[in-house]
């Protein structure tokens, strides 16, 4: 190796730096990604199962890909790319977060034999890029667009909402939730920008799922902490004037750095009175402006509550910031940080205000708001985890409806669009000269993971259904919307069956998955520098005998190194899938 004699090797990089390169490195990165997808693949589709993840004290049960990926705390540097695409799919589309990871990993898996055979990764990447562009274009061709004013439009929204809910925990209640979700989104009057801010999802543990409800075009929040005098207050108004404050209505020291010094004992009483006067002035200002309802972000004390009750006003203190913003948006009121200079213009109004009892909770409900760009959804359910998962499901579905509203076009789900795109790619592949042909074919095969996994999760034999589907798509002109029939273990026209997904969802998944696969394929060397604050890692690396590394949580960040060692010991994929947990921080499995 070294022509100049017996000198030891040259150290180029810092002590403890771990490098691995070449084919083995690439294969080990792909294996790490496969371990991740094995962890989440069973959650796909209506028959997908949930994952229970316990982190510290909190327990999460979910089948939302993005949530699981986030909670897994993946340490492997290459596999982190998968977390990224899952997150960006979540931000961009909201749903399809599992699909995108599955697709990316399946593309990699299909490419693995090529890598092992020594095909240059650049050739793979170029073909994957071309194939993904073709796939996105095909989705554009396939999509069915609806006119915004047509009757089917609302129907389309309903169908996309229920399709999104289908794969979730609350799928059996989609008849309840789907209309609620569509109503909530359409109540926003087209201003879809701040969906998370404008549609509040309130979780109230207890009761039954079917007691969940929507306050359309209005705001509802749980009764805040109340002081004495609350019972006497008027609890329902028609067309009330609403004042929103960011002021504490309580007797208190005005400023920390102020001090009163009096020379004359007689003056003491006047100081006390002045303090009372200050708060009375504030309360008077609130009453005088003609408001019927006073809400404040800060506490409203005993005195003020009593004072308002005497004058027929309703008040609530310590209202949450988000609720406050929604009330402001809905009623047209402006939040005031001072009680001075309140005028008519800053007051808001609504058709009806009411304090309602629902189940065992009391709610303040504002309905018939003039500006109405907000809705509140109240979710009920047995356990905290159940409601938390319901919330995620509803949120995904909301995002999907928003997407459909914006793009106005859908494709059929249930693996139909993937099958059709795969067929198109296969046809196209025949026209390609050179290795690209095989790679595009492999890409097409990778797309079939979606129907395949759907079958697998539903307990059917994927090979039977897949071959039938392939045949249908290849032979029948009208067969383009045929996907997996989860109920009967057969195929069906999923478009007809109302399994609709926004076309953006699919095109985004295809593009992101291909991008992530390309990132991983493009890496030909992994260099891990020792962490600067963590000298233990470096010495641990140095001292640990090769075999013992797997047990140490610290060395997990050296996932690549471990893999390289594994690969060197024999067989390129020895044990990687089995101990996939070692890519994650020490939890789960054990």
């Amino acid at each position, binding site marked *: 190796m070294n022509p*100049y004699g017996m000198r*030891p090797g040259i150290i180029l990089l810092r002590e403890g730096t771990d490098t691995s390169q070449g084919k083995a490195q690439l294969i080990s990165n792909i294996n790490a990604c496969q371990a991740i997808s094995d962890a989440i693949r069973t959650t796909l589709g209506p028959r997908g199962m949930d994952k229970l993840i316990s982190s510290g004290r909190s327990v999460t049960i979910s089948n939302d890909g993005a949530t699981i990926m986030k909670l897994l705390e993946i340490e492997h*540097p290459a596999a982190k790319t998968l977390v990224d695409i899952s997150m960006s799919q979540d931000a*961009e589309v909201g749903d399809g977060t599992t699909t995108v990871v599955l697709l990316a990993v399946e593309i990699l898996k299909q490419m693995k034999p090529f890598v092992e055979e020594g*095909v240059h*990764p650049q050739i793979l990447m170029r073909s994957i890029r071309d194939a993904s562009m073709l796939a996105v274009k095909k989705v554009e061709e396939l999509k069915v667009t609806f006119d915004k004013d047509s009757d089917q439009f609302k129907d389309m929204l309903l169908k996309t909402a229920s399709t999104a809910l289908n794969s979730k925990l609350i799928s059996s209640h989609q008849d309840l939730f789907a209309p609620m979700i569509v109503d909530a989104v359409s109540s926003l009057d087209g201003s879809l920008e701040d969906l998370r801010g404008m549609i509040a999802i309130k979780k109230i543990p207890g009761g039954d799922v079917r007691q969940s409800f929507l306050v359309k075009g209005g705001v509802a929040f749980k009764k805040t902490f109340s002081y004495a005098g609350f019972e006497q207050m008027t609890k329902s108004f028609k067309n009330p004037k609403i004042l929103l404050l960011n002021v504490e209505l309580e007797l208190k020291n005005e400023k920390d750095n102020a001090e009163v010094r*009096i020379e004359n004992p007689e003056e003491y009483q006047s100081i006390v009175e002045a303090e009372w006067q200050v708060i009375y*002035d504030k309360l008077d200002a609130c009453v005088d402006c003609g408001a019927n309802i006073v809400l404040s972000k800060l506490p409203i004390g005993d005195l003020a509550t009593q004072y308002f009750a005497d004058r027929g006003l309703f008040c609530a203190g310590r209202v949450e910031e988000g609720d406050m913003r929604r009330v402001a948006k809905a009623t047209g009121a402006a939040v005031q940080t001072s009680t001075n200079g309140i005028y008519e213009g800053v007051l808001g109004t609504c058709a009806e205000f009411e304090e309602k009892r629902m189940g065992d909770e009391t709610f303040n409900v504002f309905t018939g708001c003039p500006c109405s760009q907000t809705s509140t959804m109240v979710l009920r359910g047995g356990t905290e985890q159940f409601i938390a998962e319901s919330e995620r499901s509803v949120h995904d579905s909301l995002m999907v409806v928003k997407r459909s509203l914006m793009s106005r076009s859908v494709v059929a789900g249930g693996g139909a669009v993937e099958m059709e795109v795969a067929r198109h790619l296969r046809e196209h592949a025949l026209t390609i*000269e050179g290795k690209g042909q095989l790679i595009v074919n492999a890409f097409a095969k990778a797309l079939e993971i979606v129907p395949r996994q759907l079958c697998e999760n539903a307990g059917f034999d994927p090979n039977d259904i897949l071959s039938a589907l392939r045949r249908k798509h290849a032979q029948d002109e009208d067969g383009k919307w045929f996907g997996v029939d989860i109920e009967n273990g057969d195929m069906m026209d999923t478009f007809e069956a109302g399994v609709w997904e926004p076309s953006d969802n699919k095109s985004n998944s295809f593009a992101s998955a291909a991008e992530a696969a390309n990132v991983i394929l493009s890496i030909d*060397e992994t260099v891990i520098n020792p962490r600067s604050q963590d000298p233990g890692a470096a010495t641990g690396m140095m001292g640990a005998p090769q075999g013992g590394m797997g047990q140490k949580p610290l060395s997990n960040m050296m996932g690549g190194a471990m893999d390289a060692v594994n690969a060197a010991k024999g067989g390129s994929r020895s044990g990687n899938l089995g101990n996939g947990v070692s890519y994650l921080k020490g939890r789960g499995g054990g």
Partner: protein
Amino acid sequence: MAQSMAYNASAGLSGMLKKGHQSFSGLTDATLRNVEACREISTVTRTSLGPNGMNKLVVNHLGRIIVTSDCCAIVKELEIEHPAAKMLQMAAEAQDFECGDGTNLVVSFAGELLSQTEDLFRMGLHPADVVSGYSSAGEKLLEFLEEMTSEVEGVADGRMKEQLERAIRPVLAAKQLGSEDVLAPLVAEACLGTMSSGGKAAVNVESVRVAKILGGNIHQSHVVHGFVALRGVEMTLTSCENAKIAVFSCGIEASATEAKGTVLMKNAEDLKSYNKSEEKKMEEVIKSIADSGVKVIVSGGSVSEMALHFIERYGMLCLKIGSKWELRRLCVATGSTALVRMGAPTPDEMGWCDDVKQIEVGGKPVTVFNQKDDSGKSKLSTIVLRASTSSVLADLERAIDDGVHAANTACKDGRLVPGAGATEMELSLKIIAFADTCPGLDQYAIRAFGKALEVVPRTLAENAGLDQGSVLAALGAAHASGKKSAGIDIDAMGVATATGIKDETNVLDLYATKSTAFRLAIDAALTVLRVDQIIMSKQAGGGRNAAMDPMAGM
């Protein structure tokens, strides 16, 4: 280590220096070791050369993950310890600073120059012969390179979008193959947007910014003629047109005294009016700002709730920007002056923006300050980048940086040379021909220099998955028959029947970038070759030292 010390250090020297030092001298111990280290580093980066270069995944000491094929970023993050290899790193950094692009050419070429010397030394050449041969070859190289500029038409006018794109596209293609058709127009548009209307076309590298937003794909990226802040406004109002802008580098809140002060109140009246007076003061300030016509207030610090209340009441927008750098960029984009005290700005100090609005991108609110097209008002452009993974985003940003640098260079010196290894191949042939005319021993060094130039076409072919031997032979034949701009055809990869070369390559490189890269590479190589002794004193830090012996090894 003790053994190697006893072997290496002469008694005289070790007697003079503090205990624990190391010294290496002579051809085998110093020069060849340095050469070897440099060759190592260039083998690491070489696979990243060109459009088909592979990426490296580097996890740096803070745990950040970097996936890139940008040579400068790689060598910077590698934390190189070896002193000679560090010289290549510094040369790459200098190239990055000067031209942005071509950093890999520096490291690969310098590495190749040095590895060629191993054979020369074995033949018995003295390093001095090699140095003199390399330097005369270097001078010739730059001469020949300038001649090459007549082969292709250069960038005549930096204001023409097509011409600018011609210079930017190959740079972007080398970093982000497949995205250059999307990125090149964006970069060109962003650069053109910041050019002042009079005088020679010029691009300030600082004036094109990148706002990275996770999600979507690269086709959704676009240019904003102005500034993009990655946070929303503080108000219920979210958009404003034709706005005057006041920028405060301070917080907008009631001023507190630095020294500890206590307000002493003597009687009840004081107590009642205390709070009111503070409110009144704030209202006065905000009102005076509103009266001056300002519609948008930007603060570099915190904005008190009381201030927000009045800003809301007077119908203005308010945005907080935490970073001082960002604030300064906003000032440049809108032409405003940052005020250090609260109060109404003078007309000079106010900025102007045609359109300010908060929009949602990828689930996050961002505030966009957009000047209408071709108004020439904005001296800053922002490219809003979209991609679905953060490592791709970061790599795209680096590519865009290089693209802007290229635009900058193209405006200064628009001469172009053929790329795709064509220039290097032609130069290689010329240098080898030149070697034959030299009488002395340095003839061998010059020939080796010419040979080293082949590293570019060879690596391009190798990275594209082509058979490098046959491609290089075909390329050499093409050049010998007078096709001066024949280059590697990377599109041929994966197609068995293709020859792998193109007679007229459409890839063009900037002359300035290339000549700087060659000069830096030659300088770095010569510096390394001139070293004949390395003396390292004992590193401070005690125990770590034993393991940190960079020369002796594990």
